[in-house]
């Protein structure tokens, strides 16, 4: 009990030492006492306020809940509490913690029993500005984190130590197809497909017991299961935290479906590419081989050709020189007629070879455009036969020409046609036996094609040689028959010219 003056002194000292504001109001709602704290905060002195009505000192508070609460405390003995959060009008106090504004307050109002049975009221004021400030900071920090959580592109899911979901961000909602409220407090194994689903509780329990987890702090590729039951590949990174005294695990999830699709597409196109590369390599190798062969053939051909060209050329020069040197004496027709013949023959042979080569290269390079006209077969074959007369008589062969009745005109290049026929006839003549026969026939087959046949009773061509004639420079090479003068077989030219007209050329040899 506080009775003695020294106790009273202690009471007032106590009041002035408190770190909260104290106002004592009397029955008439007038000030009786303010403590130090309140004086400082209000900027008013207890002496100036004593006996003043509350509403007079703070007219801005008229009609406020604060004033009503004070009246209730005095009149009805009711206690009240008021806070800045819900009340705009509280006491006009300043705080060091809020230099520019009004102090954030928490006010307690309690009825008091004053002397002589009078009632009064106690107003206790606490400065919660720092708490408010701290709340604001916490809130802003909270907002930041919340925003991160809400707006993260990756799914974020937190679970407690039993595996029940405590947080599930919007990205996770999208990934798994569940709205947040459907998964909160449910077990996270809901999102895990079998077989891991059944194992998850075991993993958690094991971790709780041993503290060993392979999964914490690492990122792994796993499968997730959506609400509709479909599965998808995802990365999962798990971290652990201790909130209060409980453990919490947070998983960050990225959907890998797109990446997997892209990888698969890449793999497929890579495979296709490899196949194509292999094919292309094969093609290139083949082409290389062919080119090498052709190159080889070409070199051989060149070697041969240069020999073939030089031989007659040497003869021409040689014999000419001998005539120059008058080796057999002064020049007369009788003495040197033989040499001149030989020069002529060599020249012609040379010309023949050169023409062949030129023709072949022209046909091959596509320079030869057929100059097509309607050809009277009777007349054309007669012409060819006449051209061959010198050779026929030289080799002692006879030629018979048969043309079917009513043969239509042939639409072809006249010059080339003649070349073909003459070449064939030439070969048949040259490689014939003495007194041999050459036959030339023209007819229509039952498919309406015009067929020309040149036959001879000559030495024939071996089967393996016929086959060899298929290769291009092989053909040419075999056309340079050594030991035989004249134009040569000319098979390659014939084939090329035939191809030019889309005609078919067949070479056969029957040995009897």
């Amino acid at each position, binding site marked *: 009990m506080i009775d003695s003056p020294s106790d009273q002194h202690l009471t007032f000292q106590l009041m002035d030492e408190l770190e909260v504001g104290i106002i004592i109001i009397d029955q008439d709602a007038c000030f009786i006492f303010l403590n130090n704290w309140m004086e400082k905060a209000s900027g008013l002195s207890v002496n100036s306020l004593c006996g003043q009505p509350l509403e007079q000192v703070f007219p801005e508070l008229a009609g406020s809940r604060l004033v009503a609460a004070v009246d209730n405390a005095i009149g009805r*003995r*009711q*206690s009240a*509490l008021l806070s800045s*959060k*819900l009340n705009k009008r509280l006491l006009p106090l300043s705080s060091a913690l809020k230099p520019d504004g009004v102090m954030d307050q928490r006010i*307690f109002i309690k009825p008091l029993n004053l002397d002589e049975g009078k009632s009064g009221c106690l107003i206790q004021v606490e400065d919660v500005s720092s708490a408010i400030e701290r709340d604001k900071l916490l809130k802003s920090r*909270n907002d930041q984190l919340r925003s991160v959580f809400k707006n993260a592109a990756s799914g974020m899911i937190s679970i407690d130590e039993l595996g029940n979901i405590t947080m599930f961000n919007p990205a996770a909602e999208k990934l798994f197809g569940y709205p947040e409220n459907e998964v909160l407090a449910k077990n996270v194994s809901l999102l895990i497909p079998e077989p891991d689903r059944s194992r998850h509780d075991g993993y958690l329990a094991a971790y709780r017991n041993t503290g060993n987890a392979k999964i914490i702090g690492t990122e792994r590729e796993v499968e997730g299961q959506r609400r509709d039951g479909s599965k998808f590949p995802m990365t999962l990174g798990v971290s652990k935290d201790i909130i209060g005294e409980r453990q919490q695990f947070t998983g960050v999830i990225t959907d890998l479906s797109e990446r997997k699709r892209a990888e698969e597409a890449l793999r497929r196109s890579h495979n296709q590419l490899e196949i194509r590369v292999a094919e292309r390599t094969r093609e290139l190798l083949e082409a290389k081989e062919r080119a090498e062969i052709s190159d080889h053939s070409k070199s051989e051909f060149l070697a041969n050709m240069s020999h073939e060209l030089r031989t007659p050329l040497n003869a021409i020069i040689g014999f000419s020189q001998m005539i120059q040197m008058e080796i057999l004496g002064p020049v007369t027709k009788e003495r040197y007629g033989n040499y001149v013949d030989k020069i002529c023959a060599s020249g012609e042979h040379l010309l023949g070879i050169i023409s062949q080569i030129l023709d072949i290269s022209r046909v091959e390079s596509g320079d030869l455009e057929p100059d097509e006209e309607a050809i009277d077969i009777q007349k054309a074959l007669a012409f060819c036969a006449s051209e061959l007369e010198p050779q026929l008589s030289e080799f002692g062969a006879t030629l018979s020409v048969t043309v079917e009745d009513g043969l239509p005109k042939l639409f072809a290049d006249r010059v080339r046609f003649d070349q073909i026929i003459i070449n064939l006839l030439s070969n048949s003549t040259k490689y014939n036996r003495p007194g041999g026969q050459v036959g030339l026939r023209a007819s229509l087959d039952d498919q309406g094609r015009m067929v020309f046949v040149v036959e001879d009773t000559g030495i024939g061509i071996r089967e393996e040689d016929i086959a060899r004639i298929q290769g291009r420079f092989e053909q040419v090479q075999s056309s340079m028959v050594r030991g035989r003068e004249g134009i040569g077989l000319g098979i390659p030219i014939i084939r090329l010219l035939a191809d030019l007209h889309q005609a078919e050329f067949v070479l056969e040899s029957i040995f009897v």
Partner: protein
Amino acid sequence: MVQLSETAHDALTELIGIAIGRAAQSLNEMIGQEVSLSVPEIEFLTPGDAVGKLGSKVASDMTLIQQGFSGPISGSSFLAFLEENSFELVKLLLGDQIPVEDIPELEQEAMKEVGNVILNAFLGSLGNELEITVASEIPEFQKSVSGRQIFQSSPDDAHIILFVHVDFDLRESKIDGYLVLIIGVSAMDTLIGFVEDYVAKMT
């Protein structure tokens, strides 16, 4: 059990109705929204019955504001809400300026204040009508309380429970609440005495 004459019972019911009306008014002033409070039920129960009653109505956890009172009648008054309802109420109190995520932190402060306003209005009105002074204390806040726990402090039949089921009808929502007075048996007798005086005065 409580022995109330029919007239006394009716009178008390009426008084409570008036008191609830006052409470609605105060709440209205506080949140600036139209509030109407209706009272579907008033009952006098033993703690055991009350547990059963509340237990059957309320399966989940509740938010509680408790305010003691004293004077010629003393006891405890409670305002109880289902947790989600108290959240709704706080949302209304704090208005739109506060984002929903911050409400849980402010819930305690706000609920204490609104509970204080409602209970003070209620007790004040009863006191006024019965011409007695019922002093009230600063309220306390409790969260996640089950129906049983409310009456744990009074496990025996030495107390009577005045159980009032209140519907808070706000413009955009309806909130269920319970206003409970726990009074000692002798205090109950005193109260009945006052009620009968009141009846006598009216007639």
